[in-house]
């Protein structure tokens, strides 16, 4: 059955902000879906609050709503757009839950919107863990023994007969939020309590633990003719007990015989039929007992998932794309396989290579968090690698992570290793357990011992032993002969690792290797193990015999992606890379993408002309460049768009003779090296905060005394604000240095600490600008909502700036241009300024596309990243203005007063990071970035836009109720007016002693509550923390003084986060919040406007007629 003719417009719901467990894999699936639906001639209406995504680019849908994904907002969109159908299976749990809600409230029926891709019954059967167990039973399969509970009493009873440890899991949450192992009553009460809260249906499931079993996943697809295919099987190297999102996973499965595999396949197919997913993809997880092969079905996701993105990249079978086609009527046999073009999609991919995915964590950002891996997903990103063998793929994957401690190493003498201690450490799954295992093996542990400690399958362990043996050969070989080197490369050793083993520098090893003619070949991911010719150049390197890269005529540009997502470097950078690919393809170049992040759009084989799924290390990139130079003319490599990862390679690539386009490595150095940058500023007569460097407490004290407290201290060699702290006095300065040294950070003359004057009460300003050597295009000037001192990535901001005057914007423009010229930027530049007491300070300049580029592009309706790519390849801004890629006149700094206001708000992951005793980690913001994602609110004025951003970020500000206020002395003055306003709006105020006192002075009544430290009163009067936990408080205002969160502040914020209530930690946020609350008060359906309409309006005022984009990629 081909395309359904009764559908003409479709609403697609995205997944909202990037959060742990729901990341940019849904941008990949959503983008694919939007593309194919439009190719089918359907009108696509999209809602997604996440501005950093590619799918929310105006060109991917007919109407793009960057609005909060809440039932009433989506209803408003439906009422306005009247789509025929809603496709909810490509936006993760968020989309699925929203669709269920809309169905439940009768909205879909009311507007005659059909749910396609999955019906409500199917969704409920799969998502409700209890109902699902019935499904499994009806399919003649087994699930873990369990009990469904709605109250704490039921919970305790159930635990009684299931026995400890017991798995606690709420229904309808994603990424295992709120789930985990309880080992005793205390843990159980705590976790089940949280679980009941986290579950939209206040329902938790207790389950028998089958920790240590082998874990597998199957990705299936089904069409309306009931044709089912298994796209991919995935085996978890980490056994049951570690969330698949946190596990090292391998495709295809490595340790199943055909009989066992077919059994999983049969069950999978039976389940998808029984659940009734009539079209689309789904993911099913299994546990297999390694002792007797007993199979238990864990769960099923009736939608595309993180794993299906992985499976798509691993096999070349684009699950989301095909799911979208199936949803609108096609059957699998009617859809061609993109890669072979000859054969249909109704087959099962077969692999002649091995794929390994490794998770990337961010525990260093949450020192208080429990780093043990469990059933709650904690990783923030992942890297994938492809190789012809497991060893090759694994080592490539590990170096793709860009975290040195993940790598296998052979430092020190094996004799010095404590085998038993290592085995003991390996028992507890944590970030980097695999390298502990490698050290244990190196220390002489047997496969049996390691298997016993970790449950990792002996076959995988034997492969690690193989790596050890090869390492030994390399180290012991009298000389580095071709056979020795070739064998090492074949098993994935990097030149650096070989160098370390032979104590010679990496580049010398590379020299030897090239002299011996040992280079990787590039194979093709073709879905069929070479049975049919592949039409799509999707390559991976391997030290094997035959190379498959074909020559090409067009001039090529190589774009380096940003690697695994991490806090500080996420989907925003993929956005810029993808745009460069589109822009350069449109202007006639052959685009070549290099990246190792399976979640992204950039690693979709039809984003660029050629895709190399490779680690972003110097060695791997050099080999890609070499391969491309052999097959045609490489104009240059783009390092400016993928964030810090490619930027860090620029100088070394250039040193190896690789042409870098855009801002030169020398210029990059000028901006990044403090001394050099200081000179650039000096020459331009610009100022930065007073600063100095110190390698001891006495020196630090001296600097601080000279420039004055508060000071901002940070180790000189870390990025992303790592280890940054605001220090208010000598005492805390001492303790910082103490801690720094304590935590193994060696403070030496080579690695000093940087001490900056901390600008108090300064307004932070973020700028993205484009410079071609002559003209500056000011992309946008963003005014932060929080004061300087809170990382730009974590603070909300407004564009156009909410309070800055034209004079200030002009100064910002002048200084930005001076820096762009002084540094020698060709392309994008990001600068953070701080405006304190009328003085404009330069905090830092990043000579690259920044996190805010997509936000600015959407807020101003100008494709900045595309323009940047063009400028890097020599176009002038004047030319781009003439072309209609940029406005003919004016720029993001001269937006008309009628322009809509966009507010960006950060989304923070505190709820996922519990301390070992189950407390939420401290949620106070600081100079170190900790947000995982962002949302955008866009509307006619700041208050409305701000309110929307809050709604999108965490469900929104309360319209009434009780506010708790407790502010530090320096904030007391600033708080009075906003609190007064809240009272007028009908809020009740709870306050701590001092705050209440000040309020009373200003005639504002408030109830004094007991401090947490004071404990409950004589007659059991509850403390503020208890009140928050009892749900008596609707919004919390708590501004701590200083970074060292004192017990009270910490307890308060933790409780608030745990209860999912908005928490305001700066007075600036407070006044914005008050405006937001006012703006939202008393309306019916929220007003919604598509980005296209916003841009049209803005462009009209602006007199900007953009050149119409062709459908990207096509």
């Amino acid at each position: 059955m081909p395309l359904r003719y009764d559908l003409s417009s479709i609403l697609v719901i995205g997944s909202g902000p990037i959060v742990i467990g729901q990341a940019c894999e849904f941008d990949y699936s959503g983008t694919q879906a939007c593309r194919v639906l439009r190719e089918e001639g359907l009108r696509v209406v999209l809602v997604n609050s996440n501005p950093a995504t590619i799918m929310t680019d105006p060109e991917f849908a007919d109407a793009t709503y960057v609005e909060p994904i809440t039932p009433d907002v989506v209803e408003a969109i439906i009422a306005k757009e009247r789509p025929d159908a809603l496709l909810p299976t490509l936006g993760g749990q968020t989309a699925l839950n929203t669709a269920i809600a809309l169905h439940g409230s009768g909205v879909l029926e009311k507007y005659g919107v059909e749910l396609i891709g999955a019906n409500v019954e199917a969704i409920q059967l799969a998502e409700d863990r209890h109902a699902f167990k019935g499904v499994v039973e009806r399919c003649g399969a087994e699930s873990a023994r369990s009990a469904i509970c709605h109250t704490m009493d039921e919970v305790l009873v159930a635990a009684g007969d299931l026995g400890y440890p017991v798995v606690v899991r709420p229904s309808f949450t994603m990424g295992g939020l709120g789930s985990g192992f309880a080992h005793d009553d205390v843990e159980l009460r705590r976790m089940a309590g949280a679980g009941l809260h986290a579950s939209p249906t206040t329902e938790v499931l207790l389950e028998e633990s089958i920790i240590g079993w082998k874990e597998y996943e199957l990705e299936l697809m089904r069409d309306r003719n009931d044709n089912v295919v298994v796209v991919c099987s995935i085996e978890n190297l980490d056994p049951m007990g570690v969330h698949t999102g946190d596990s090292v996973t391998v495709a295809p499965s490595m340790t199943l015989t055909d009989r066992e595999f077919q059994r999983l396949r049969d069950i999978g197919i039976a389940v998808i039929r029984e659940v009734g997913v009539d079209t689309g993809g789904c993911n099913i997880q299994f546990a297999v007992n390694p002792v007797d092969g007993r199979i238990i079905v864990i769960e099923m996701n009736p939608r595309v998932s993180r794993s299906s993105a992985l499976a798509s990249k691993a096999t070349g079978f684009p699950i989301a794309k095909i799911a979208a086609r199936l949803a609108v009527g096609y059957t699998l046999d009617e859809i061609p396989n993109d890669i072979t073009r000859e054969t249909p999609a109704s087959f099962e991919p077969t692999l002649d290579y091995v794929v390994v995915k490794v998770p990337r964590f961010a525990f260093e950002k949450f020192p208080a968090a429990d780093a043990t891996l469990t059933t709650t997903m904690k990783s923030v990103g992942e890297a994938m690698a492809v190789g012809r063998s497991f060893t090759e793929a694994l080592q490539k994957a590990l170096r793709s992570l860009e975290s040195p401690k993940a790598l296998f190493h052979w430092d020190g003498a094996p004799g010095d290793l404590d085998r038993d201690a290592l085995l003991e450490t390996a028992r507890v799954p944590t970030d980097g357990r695999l390298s502990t295992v490698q050290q244990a093996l190196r220390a002489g542990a047997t496969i049996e011992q390691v298997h016993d400690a970790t449950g990792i399958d002996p076959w995988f362990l034997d492969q690690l032993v193989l790596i050890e043996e090869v390492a030994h050969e390399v180290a012991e070989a009298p000389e580095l002969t071709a056979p020795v080197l070739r064998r090492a490369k074949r098993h994935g050793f990097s030149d650096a690792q070989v160098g370390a083993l032979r104590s010679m520098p990496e580049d010398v090893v590379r020299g030897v290797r090239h002299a011996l003619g040992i280079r990787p070949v590039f194979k093709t991911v073709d879905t069929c193990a070479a049975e049919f010719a592949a039409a799509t150049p999707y390559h991976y390197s391997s030290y094997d015999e035959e190379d498959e890269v074909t020559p090409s005529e067009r001039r090529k540009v190589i774009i380096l992606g940003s690697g695994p997502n991490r806090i500080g470097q996420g989907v925003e950078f993929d956005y810029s890379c993808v745009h460069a690919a589109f822009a350069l393809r449109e202007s006639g170049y052959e685009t070549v993408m290099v990246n190792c992040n399976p979640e992204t759009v950039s690693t979709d084989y039809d984003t660029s002309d050629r895709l190399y799924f490779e680690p972003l290390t110097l060695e791997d990139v050099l080999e890609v460049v070499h391969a491309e130079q052999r097959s045609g003319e490489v104009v240059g490599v783009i390092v400016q768009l993928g964030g810090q990862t490619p930027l860090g390679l620029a100088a070394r690539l250039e040193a190896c003779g690789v042409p870098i386009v855009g801002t030169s490595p020398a210029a990059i150095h000028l901006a990044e090296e403090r001394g050099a940058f200081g000179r650039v500023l000096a020459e331009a007569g610009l100022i930065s905060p007073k600063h100095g460097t110190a390698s001891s407490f006495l020196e630090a004290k001296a600097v601080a005394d000279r420039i004055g407290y508060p000071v901002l201290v940070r180790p000189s060699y870390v990025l992303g604000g790592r280890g940054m702290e605001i220090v208010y006095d000598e005492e805390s300065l001492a303790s910082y240095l103490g801690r720094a040294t304590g935590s193994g950070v060696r403070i030496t003359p080579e690695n000093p600490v940087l001490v900056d004057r901390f600008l108090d009460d300064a307004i932070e300003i973020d700028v993205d600008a484009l410079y071609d050597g002559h003209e500056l295009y000011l992309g946008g000037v963003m005014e932060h909502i929080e004061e300087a001192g809170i990382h730009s990535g974590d603070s909300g901001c407004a564009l156009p700036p909410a309070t800055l005057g034209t004079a200030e914007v002009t100064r910002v423009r002048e200084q930005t241009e001076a820096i762009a010229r002084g540094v020698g930027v060709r392309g994008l530049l990001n600068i953070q300024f701080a405006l304190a007491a009328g003085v404009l300070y330069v905090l830092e300049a990043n000579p690259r596309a920044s996190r805010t580029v997509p936000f600015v592009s959407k807020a101003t309706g100008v494709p900045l990243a595309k323009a940047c790519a063009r400028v890097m390849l020599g176009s002038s801004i004047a030319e781009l203005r003439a072309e209609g890629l940029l406005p003919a006149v004016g720029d993001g700094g001269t937006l008309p007063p009628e322009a809509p206001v966009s507010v960006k708000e950060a989304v923070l992951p505190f709820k996922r990071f519990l301390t070992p005793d189950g407390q939420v980690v401290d949620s106070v913001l600081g100079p170190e970035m900790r947000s995982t994602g962002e949302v955008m609110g866009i509307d006619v004025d700041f208050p409305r836009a701000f309110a929307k951003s809050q709604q999108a970020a965490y469900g929104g500000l309360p319209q009434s109720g009780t506010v708790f206020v407790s502010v530090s002395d320096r904030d007391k003055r600033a708080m009075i007016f906003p609190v007064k306003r809240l009272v007028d709006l009908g809020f009740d105020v709870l306050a701590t002693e001092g705050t209440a006192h000040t309020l009373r002075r200003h005639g504002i009544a408030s109830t004094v509550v007991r401090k947490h430290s004071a404990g409950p009163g004589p007659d059991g009067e509850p403390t503020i923390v208890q009140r928050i936990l009892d749900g008596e408080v609707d919004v919390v205002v708590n501004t701590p003084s200083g970074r060292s969160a004192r017990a009270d502040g910490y307890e308060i914020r933790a409780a608030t986060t745990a209860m999912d209530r908005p928490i305001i930690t700066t007075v600036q946020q407070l006044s914005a919040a008050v405006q937001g609350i006012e703006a939202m008060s008393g309306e019916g359906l929220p007003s919604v406007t598509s980005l296209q309409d916003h841009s049209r309006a803005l462009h009209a005022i602006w007199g900007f007629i953009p050149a119409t984009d062709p459908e990207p990629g096509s």
Partner: protein
Amino acid sequence: MADAVLVLEDGRTFVGRAYGASGRTVGEAVFCTAMTGYQETLTDPSYHRQVVVMTAPHIGNTGWNDEDDESARIWVAGYVVRDPARRASSWRSRRGLADELAAQGVVGISDVDTRALTRHLRERGAMRAGIFSGDAVASDAAMLEVVRAAPSMAGADLAGEVSTPRAYVVEAVGEKRLTVAALDLGIKGMTPELMAQRGIEVHVLPAASTVDDVLAVAPDGVFFSNGPGDPGTANDVVGLIGAVLERRIPFFGICFGNQLLGRALGLDTYKLTYGHRGINQPVLDRTTGKVEVTAHNHGFAVRAPGAGTGTGAEPFDTPHGRARVSHVCLNDDVVEGLECLDVPAFSVQYHPEAAAGPHDAAYLFDRFVDLMTVGCESRARHAGASQREAHTRGEGEGS
């Protein structure tokens, strides 16, 4: 001197390491794209005289167990892999694959670029190849000599070499409902097992059996198995099918059996460039319009009218009445199944018994049972149904 060398008929060679038994072997080089089930593959008699190249790089991970053999021995002439397991891991494993290969004297080679080899065979077609290891390694010329001297698959009559020497019976599981005479042309263990599970008592007969031998077991149906070799040669067996059809005894054939039914219906068989060998092949059942993912292992195929013509199959006339192409491979439109409309007979080119492979096609054994119990009427129904199918789908097509 290289440890082991693979030499292809056209002169291309691959150097690798000795695997399994060392020595020399020749056969037809073919590649198999299955990612699981190497034990079933190795013991599948259809691979007799073939040097099998595994496209999946890691082979041997689950060792060798006592349950998964499809016949009494390993049949492949030689085995080519990239990364043999050093250690087996499976609760069912009894010994390592390398040891088993060595024990059964199967010469193999490892550490070769199996993808390069596969691409070569895809472009140039299946061809003779030899594996030489240990003392057998000689000059390229000498080794090529040996390879070119080997008999080629076209024209090879091999059923006799793999068939059971004497008849044996596989008892029905539970109550016996039917009796089937199954001609062993290289039958796999799973086939009689699946029939037995359906209450069939299976009399497995040698390839050389006569009509009388077949009739002697008073069968409700006759089954022809898969097997190695060129269907163009097996003339006596073709005659046997004719006799069965004349007596309107329900007939079901698999793989080689499908090619032989084709010949009995007066159709030709031909050699595919590189064959279908894998467990992921999409086959359209024209009777239901559904796609099944199936296990294939065939280098030859039947040439029939109306194979590639979309989904509708126009019946054509044969010495035994009307017949139609019931199944086609969606990858390349190769005939994957035949169905007689006037006599109770059908066959498929692929492996409904799977092992290794998906179980999607197991329903065919039920059709066989259906055919033996309900008899001819159902054929008419099927045919009618498929005509309607063809019609409606036909409409869909154009739009």
